[in-house]
C-alpha cells in the first residue's frame, strides 16, 4: 500500500520534472533570441531611418513592445525549472550533502539519517514554506498584480510556482520518508544510492 503511494508520488514528481527539463531549453532559446535581437537593435534603427516606420521600423516596434515580456519570461522559466525540478532532484538523491560522515557510514545509518532528516527537517520546512507562500500567492491572484515594467507579465503564475514547488517537494519528502521506513522495517531496497554530485 505504502509502496503504491510512493510510486504515485514518484510519477507526479517525474511529470513535473519533464516540464522543468523542457524549460531549460525554452529559457536558453528565449534568452538567446532576446540577446541577438538586442545586438541588432541599432542596425534596425539605422535601417528604419530617422523617421521610423517601414518594415524595419515595424519590426523594431514589435520588439520594443515585447522585449520586457521576453526578459520576464526568462526568469519565470527559471523559477519553473527550480521549483518544479526540486522534487525530482530529491527523488534521484542529487541534493548535495556534506558527506564527511554520510560518506563513511553504513547504508542502514544513512537510511536513518534520511528518515529523521525527512521528518524533522524537510517536511516541517515544506509545510512552513507553504504556510508563508500560499497567502502571498493569493494576494497576487486576487489583485491581478502585474509587472511594473511596460509589457511585463502578470505576476501570479510565478508566485504560484513557489507554493506548488514546496508542495511537490513535501509530497516527495513523504515518499522518501516512507521508503526509508520500508527499508528500515522490511526488505525494501532504496534505488538511488548516494553518489557525489557532478559539478
Amino acid at each position, binding site marked *: 500500500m505504502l509502496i503504491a503511494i510512493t510510486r504515485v508520488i514518484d510519477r507526479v514528481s517525474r511529470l513535473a520534472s519533464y516540464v*522543468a527539463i*523542457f524549460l*531549460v*531549453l525554452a*529559457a*536558453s*532559446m528565449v*534568452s*538567446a533570441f*532576446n540577446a*541577438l535581437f*538586442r*545586438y541588432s*537593435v*541599432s542596425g534596425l534603427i539605422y535601417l528604419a531611418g530617422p523617421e521610423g516606420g517601414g518594415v524595419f521600423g515595424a519590426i523594431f516596434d514589435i520588439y*520594443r*513592445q515585447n*522585449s*520586457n515580456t521576453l526578459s*520576464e519570461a*526568462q*526568469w519565470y522559466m527559471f*523559477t519553473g*525549472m*527550480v*521549483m518544479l*525540478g*526540486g522534487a*525530482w*532532484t*530529491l527523488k534521484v538523491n*542529487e*541534493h*548535495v*550533502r*556534506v558527506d*564527511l*560522515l*554520510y*560518506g563513511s557510514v553504513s547504508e542502514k545509518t544513512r537510511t536513518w*539519517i*534520511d528518515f529523521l*532528516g525527512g521528518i524533522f*527537517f*524537510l517536511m*516541517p*520546512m515544506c509545510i512552513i*514554506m507553504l504556510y*508563508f*507562500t500560499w497567502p*502571498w500567492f493569493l494576494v497576487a491572484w486576487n489583485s491581478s498584480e502585474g*509587472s*511594473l515594467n*511596460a*509589457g*511585463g507579465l502578470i*505576476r501570479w503564475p*510565478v508566485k504560484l510556482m513557489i507554493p506548488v514547488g514546496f508542495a511537490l517537494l513535501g509530497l516527495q519528502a513523504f515518499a522518501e520518508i516512507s521508503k526509508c521506513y520500508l527499508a528500515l522495517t522490511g526488505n525494501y531496497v532504496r534505488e538511488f544510492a548516494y553518489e557525489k554530485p*557532478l*559539478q
Partner: protein
Amino acid sequence: MTAFIIHYMAPMMFAGLIIFMIIGYPAAFSLAAVGLFFGFFAIELGVIQPEFLGNLTYQLYSVLSNELLLAIPFFTFMGVILERCGLAEDLLEGFGQLFGNVRGGLSYAVIIVGAILGAITGTVAASVIAMGLISLPMMMKYGYNIRHATGVIAASGTITQLIPPSLVLIVLADALGQSPGDMYIGATGASIVQVLLFAGWVFILSIFRPEYVPALPPEARTLRGWDLFWKCVRGMVPSLALIAIVLGTIFMGLATPTEAGAMGVVGAMIIAAIARRLTWDLVYQGMESTMKLTAMVVFILMGARVFSLVFQGVGGSHWIEEMLTGLPGGQVGFLIFTMVFVFIIAFFLDFFEIAFIIVPLLAPAAVALDINLIWFGVLLCANMQTSFMHPPFGFALFYLRGIAPKEVKSSDIYWGAIPWIVLQLILVGLLVAFPEMVTFFLDKPVVQDLNNIQIELPALSGGLDGAPDLGLPALGLPPASPAPTP
C-alpha cells in the same frame, strides 16, 4: 538563563548549523530547517518580531527572480553539450602532437587544453574526464611519471574554476554583491598567472627530472604538416569563436553574463551540429542534468537565504563582523585568517556551499576593512580551487580515479596532487602580494560600461518586484536604470 540564551543566540545558531550539516542531510534542507527552528525559537523569546519571518517569501522570490542566477543553467547546459561533441579530443590530440617533440610536451598540451576547455565548458568534471581519458593513457605509454601525469590532468581541470566564464565567479559575484563582468575581468589576470605557474612547474621538471616528462619518440608523432595543422584548427577555431562570443560580449558590455550564456548554448549546439554529434538524445540528457544541477544549487541558495535572514535577525552578522574585524593585523590578519579558514573548510564543503553560506558572513567584514571585493572574490575563488585537489575528498581526484586505468594506484593520484596544490597556494600568495594582478584590468575605462549592466541587481536582491529591464538599450549600451520603455 533566557538572557544568556538571547545573548548567545547567533553563536548557537552557527554551531547548530555546523552540527546539522555534518550529519549529512542535504545541505539545502538542513540550512532552511536550522534557520526556521531558530527563527521560531527567537520569536518565542521575543528576540525578533513574529512578522519578521514573513520576509521569507521575499527572500525566496528575490532568489528566483534574480536574472544573474539564470546564467547557472545556461553555462551548465552549454558545458554539457560541448563535453560530448568531440572538441576536447581534437584539441588534445592536436596540441599533443604539436608539442610532442619537446620534453613535457604532453603536459603543456594538457595545461593549455585545460585552460581552453575551462573557458568554454566551465565544469571541472568535464575537463578532467575528457583529459584523463585521452591524455592519461598516452602519457603512461610514453613513460611519463604517473604521479606527474595524474597531477597535471587534475590540476588543469581545476583551472576551469578561475578562468571566466565560470559558475563559481558568478555565484561569488552574487554573494559579494559585485558585477560578474568585473569579476570576470579580475579573474582573467589571475588565471593567466595560474597557467604560467603550471607551465613553469613543468618546465622546471623537464630540466631537473627529464625522465619524468620525456619527449615523444618520432614514430609517435603521426600527424605532420597540413594534417597536424588541420587537427589543431578543427579544435581551436570553434573554441576560440565560442570564447569570443561569450566573453567578448560580456567584456565589451554588449550582453549580461546571462545572455552571453544563452548565446553560448546556441553556439555549442552549432559546434555540435558541425561535428555531426547533435542528437536529440544529447540535448535531452543535457537538459536533464542541467535541470538537476540548477535545482540543487538554487535550493541551497534559498536555504542559505532562510538561514541568513534569521541569523541576521538575531544579530549574527554583528557577531561575525566584530570577531573578524577584531582580528590582529587589520587587513592582512583578516586575509590570512579567511584564506586559511576557507582552505580548511573547503575540505568539507563544496564551493556552492562556501559561496552561499560562508562568503556572505565574510563580506561585511571585508567591506569594513576596506578590501576590494573583486580582489577578495578572486582570492576566494583561487583558494576554493584547491578544494578540488585535496586528497582524499577532492572532486578532481575522484573523477580521475573513476576513469584512470587499473595500474594507476590511488596513492599515486593523491601524491601527484600535492605539488599542484602548492602551486595553487603560491597563486593565492601572489594574488595577496600583488593585487594589481586582479585590479590592473579593472582600472580601464571600459569597465564603467560593465558596471552599468549590473545596476539593476541590488534592487532585485532587495526583494523588490520587477525584472531587469533590458528593454531598449540605446545603440548597444545597456540601460543605466530599469526605466520603462522610452
